[in-house]
Every structure is written in structure tokens, then in C-alpha cells.
């Protein structure tokens, strides 16, 4: 006992430094990341916000000039096309992914043989780059030698499927390719959710004579509510920042008919030397993400905490 006490008192000055180091070390380790987040996320958002209130063109300038860029942004026809396209693409993409994803998950949940194999097939597009997906679908959807040509060769000589080169329709081809890539992911989320549903409740319902359809619509699907929320958040996030897929599939064309806000921002900020306008469009994109995702997350966390 005494020796231990002596030892610790002898150690003290040395130990104090070690103690200090021990308490500081975690902060030192975490420090760089926090500094990075502070500068490269929050600082840069402020920086871009500042640029959006200037008349920067080829080079950034920092004299504030008010809402000029936002006014010209919303007077720009191309920006309205991009917003309208985001509405069409976002809406359809989310609905198709949710419906098909849920359907696939329910089908796979019926004690299927080779389930793992099928699941792997539905999910593999998720491993590909949107650029690869876009390149593949661009070839499939081209009217000359692609799908249209195939159906015509099969005897339907008047068959026409040239959306990809038709202004006003090309945005729907982005939905086709985007949904092809992302439904497997939504399926995986739903499948995990289905596996988590309490078997006892389902058995009880079966004993009470509920039909399988009834069990799905009144018990299982309502219990998947949190999965719906996560899927909704992720899908709207993918939709708003969609850039690569449009670039590879249509290049925003024909003309600018399939532009999305992300391609608009890129074109104006980096190809047309309109830094101020590009910054303004980026800020609107950020605000859209915040306006959609924050209420979704808030309502979901409030519900689970209750």
C-alpha cells in the first residue's frame, strides 16, 4: 500500500504532463477534420454566397452589388427549363424508384430460390458510375441503331422512340436511366426493412384470417415508414445533385432542353465565365436541398423520439 502511494506521488510531475496530453490528444486528433469542415464546407458556402452577390464574371470580384445575379437568374429562360426539368425528373425518378423498389423487395421476400443471385443482379448498376450508365443508355436509346431500330426490325416499321433527340422528351430518358441505376438500392433498403418486421404480428394476423394482401397493406407497408423516409431523403438528394447522368446521356440537350440546375451551374460558372450567376444558382440548389431534406429529417427524428 505505502509503496504504491509513494510511487504515485513520485510520479506526479511526469504524470501531470501525461494527463494533460491524454485529455488534449482526442481534440488534437479530431482538430484537423473540424478545421477542414469549418473551412471547406461552411467557409466555402459563405464564400459562394458572397460571390453570388457580386458581378463576378471570368474572375471573382468581391464588391457587393445586391441581388442582381438572382434577378438575372430568375429572368433566365434556361434556368426555368432546368427547374422545370428538376421537377419532372425528381418527381418521376423518386416515384418510380420507390414503387419498383418496394415491389421488387416484396417479390424477393416470398422465400425465393436464388434470392441472393437475383438481388445481386438488381443491385449491380449501383456500383457503376453514372457516366458509364449514361454512355450505355445513350447507345441503347439512340434512334438510328438502338431500341427503335430493334423494334422496327421485329416488324413494327412505324415504331418511333426518339425521346433522346426530342426537345421536351429527352428529360424522360434521364428518368429511365436514373431509375435503372437506383431502384436496386431502394429495393435493398426495403428488403432490409421487411426482414425487420416482427413475425409475431404477421402470424397473429394470419390466425385472424387476414389475406396476404391485407397483411401487406395494413401491417407491413405502414411499418416501413422509416424506410420510406430514408429512401425519400436519399433519392431527392440524388435528384437535386444529378449532374453526371445528364452530361453523359444527353449533355443537357438537345439545345438545353434537358438541363438540370447542376448542369446549369457548371455551364455558367465554368464554360460561360459567369461566376456570379453560377454562384447564385449553386446557392439556390443548396437552399432547395435544405428546404426538402431538413423538414423530412426533422419530422422523422421527432416521430422516432416521441
Amino acid at each position: 500500500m505505502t509503496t504504491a502511494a509513494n510511487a504515485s506521488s513520485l510520479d506526479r510531475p511526469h504524470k501531470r504532463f501525461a494527463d494533460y496530453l491524454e485529455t488534449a490528444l482526442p481534440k488534437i486528433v479530431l482538430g484537423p477534420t473540424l478545421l477542414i469542415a469549418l473551412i471547406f464546407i461552411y467557409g466555402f458556402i459563405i464564400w459562394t454566397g458572397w460571390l453570388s452577390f457580386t458581378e463576378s464574371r471570368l474572375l471573382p470580384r468581391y464588391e457587393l452589388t445586391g441581388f442582381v445575379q438572382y434577378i438575372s437568374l430568375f429572368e433566365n429562360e434556361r434556368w426555368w427549363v432546368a427547374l422545370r426539368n428538376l421537377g419532372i425528373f425528381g418527381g418521376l425518378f423518386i416515384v418510380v424508384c420507390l414503387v419498383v423498389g418496394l415491389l421488387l423487395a416484396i417479390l424477393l421476400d416470398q422465400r425465393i430460390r436464388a434470392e441472393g443471385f437475383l438481388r445481386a443482379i438488381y443491385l449491380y448498376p449501383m456500383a457503376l458510375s453514372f457516366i458509364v450508365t449514361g454512355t450505355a443508355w445513350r447507345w441503347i436509346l439512340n434512334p438510328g441503331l438502338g431500341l427503335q431500330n430493334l423494334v422496327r426490325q421485329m416488324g413494327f416499321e412505324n415504331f418511333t422512340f426518339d425521346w433522346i433527340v426530342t426537345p421536351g422528351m429527352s428529360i424522360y430518358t434521364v428518368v429511365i436511366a436514373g431509375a435503372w441505376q437506383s431502384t436496386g438500392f431502394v429495393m435493398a433498403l426495403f428488403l432490409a426493412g421487411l426482414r425487420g418486421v416482427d413475425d409475431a404480428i404477421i402470424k397473429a394476423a394470419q390466425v385472424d384470417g387476414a389475406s396476404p394482401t391485407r397483411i401487406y397493406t395494413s401491417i407491413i407497408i405502414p411499418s416501413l415508414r422509416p424506410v420510406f423516409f430514408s429512401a425519400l431523403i436519399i433519392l431527392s438528394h440524388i435528384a437535386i445533385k444529378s449532374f453526371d447522368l445528364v452530361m453523359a446521356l444527353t449533355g443537357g440537350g438537345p439545345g438545353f432542353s434537358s438541363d438540370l440546375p447542376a448542369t446549369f451551374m457548371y455551364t455558367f460558372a465554368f464554360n460561360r465565365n459567369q461566376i456570379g450567376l453560377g454562384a447564385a444558382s449553386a446557392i439556390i440548389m443548396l437552399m432547395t436541398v435544405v428546404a426538402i431534406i431538413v423538414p423530412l429529417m426533422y419530422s422523422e427524428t421527432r416521430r422516432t423520439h416521441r
Partner: protein
Amino acid sequence: MADTYQTQTAGSQWLGRAVLYALLVVFAVYYLMPLFVMVTTSVKTLDDIRAGNLIALPQEISFAAWFKAWGTACIGVECNGLKGNFLNSVSFVVPAVLISTLVGAFNGYVLTMWRFRGSDVLFTMLLLGCFIPFQVILLPMAQTLGYLGIANSIPGLIFVHVVYGLAFTTLFFRNFYVTVPSDLTKAARIDGAGFFTIFWRIILPLSPAIIVVSVIWQFTQIWNDFLFGVVFSSGDRQPITVALNNLVNTSTGVKEYNVDMSAAIIAGLPTLFVYIVAGKYFLRGLTAGAVKG
């Protein structure tokens, strides 16, 4: 009576299963169709492509388009194929994945085992970084890379990918280490083990699975990235995704669909390979990054 009822339900049950499997197979064909078209187109000759159709099998199998896409296809005015860009991608993806995973592991360790006042707030702050549309940081980052003297360079791309990957890797490790019982580290601390000793001796040996998840997620994300590549690099410094897009959009002479498809497969092969070898971990990363994010 009872008998007919029995056979009827057996019959309808059989029919139900048949419809079920038919639907599943139809979907599987739909998802595989683009891959099938890519592969068959890539080994066809141009005459074969024009004479046949999308789903026709090749008359003869030729890998000429593959060699061309790899070594001699024209991207803009340069005709060196994709090989340089493939190597570019490897040279920034590997360091970026390793650095962001290592730092993420330490961050997750601090945020669970060495929490301090305010550390949860800091974590939430970091998490929001997962959600910003990257368009909002492109212009300042382009300037900053210029100031730092790493614009249009491999170190520049490593830097950008590490910076914007940290939120995800930290999230992975933090959510994993939360499940490690704190008694384990408490006991070690009483025995006098320090910050790094506990990390190397206790935490790291528990971590192989989550390291694999993080590495796969980061690899897929960074390899497939297009936005940072197209904004922060040009010419022969470009990653493979940007080069693929430029190759497809290079219009000199005849459109060579077989070369386009070979190039697309080359660009997609590494991540596809990872998916096939470690699909289980890939899925875990997806759902962990998604559900908890």
C-alpha cells in the same frame, strides 16, 4: 368436395409462384440488358453493328475495339486511348481512399471513446457536410487549389476527395464504434493504456469489417466521381470518367459505338469487380451511409 378445394388452392398457389418467378426473371432481364448490350456491342465490328441490331449476337468476336479504347482512341486531339486516364484514376483514388479511411477511423474512435464537451455538436456539424450539393463549394475550391499550387494535379484531386470524403468515413467508424462496449476501453485505461495503445491494441483488431466497408464505399465513390474530375482537372490529368465522357463526345469521322462501349466497360470494370468480390460489404456501406446519414 374437400379434395377439389385442396387441388384448387394447390393449383392457384402453383400459378402464383409461377407468376412470381416470371416477374422476377423479367426484372432480372431488364437490369441485365444494358450490360449484355454493352458487352456484345464492344466485341462486334462496325459492319456487324450496322447490319444487326441491339440484341443480336456478334457474328464474330473481335477485341479490336477494346485495344483501341485502351490505347489509341482519340479524346479530343490526343489519340492515346484511356490508359493514361485509367492510371490517373488509380493514382489519386488509392491514396485518397487510404487517407480518408485512416482519418475517419481516428475520428470515429475519438467521437465514441474519448468524447468531450461539444463533440456531439461537432459530429452533427460534420454530418451536414454529407448533404450539401457540391456545386456550392466548386468555385471557392477552384480558387483555393490555385492558391495552394495544386490546381489541375493529382495531389489536388487527392486533397479534394479526402476533404469531402471525411464526413462519410467518420460516420461509418463512429456508428460502428458506438456498438463496442465501453467497458473494454475503460478497463484498458485503468491498466494505464493510453490513447494510441488502446487504438492499436483493442480498437483496430475489432475493425476489419468496417474498414472494408469504408474502403469499398470510398473507392466506389471516388472512382465513379465525375464532378470534381471535370472541374478540377484538364487534359492528360483527367480521371477515367471524364475521359470516357470526352471520348464518347469526340466526333471525328465515323462514330465507333464498339469503342465507346469498350471504354465504358473499362471505366466500370474496377468498381464492378469490387461489387462482385465484396458485394456484402458494398451493401452494408450503402445502407449504413444511407439510413443513418
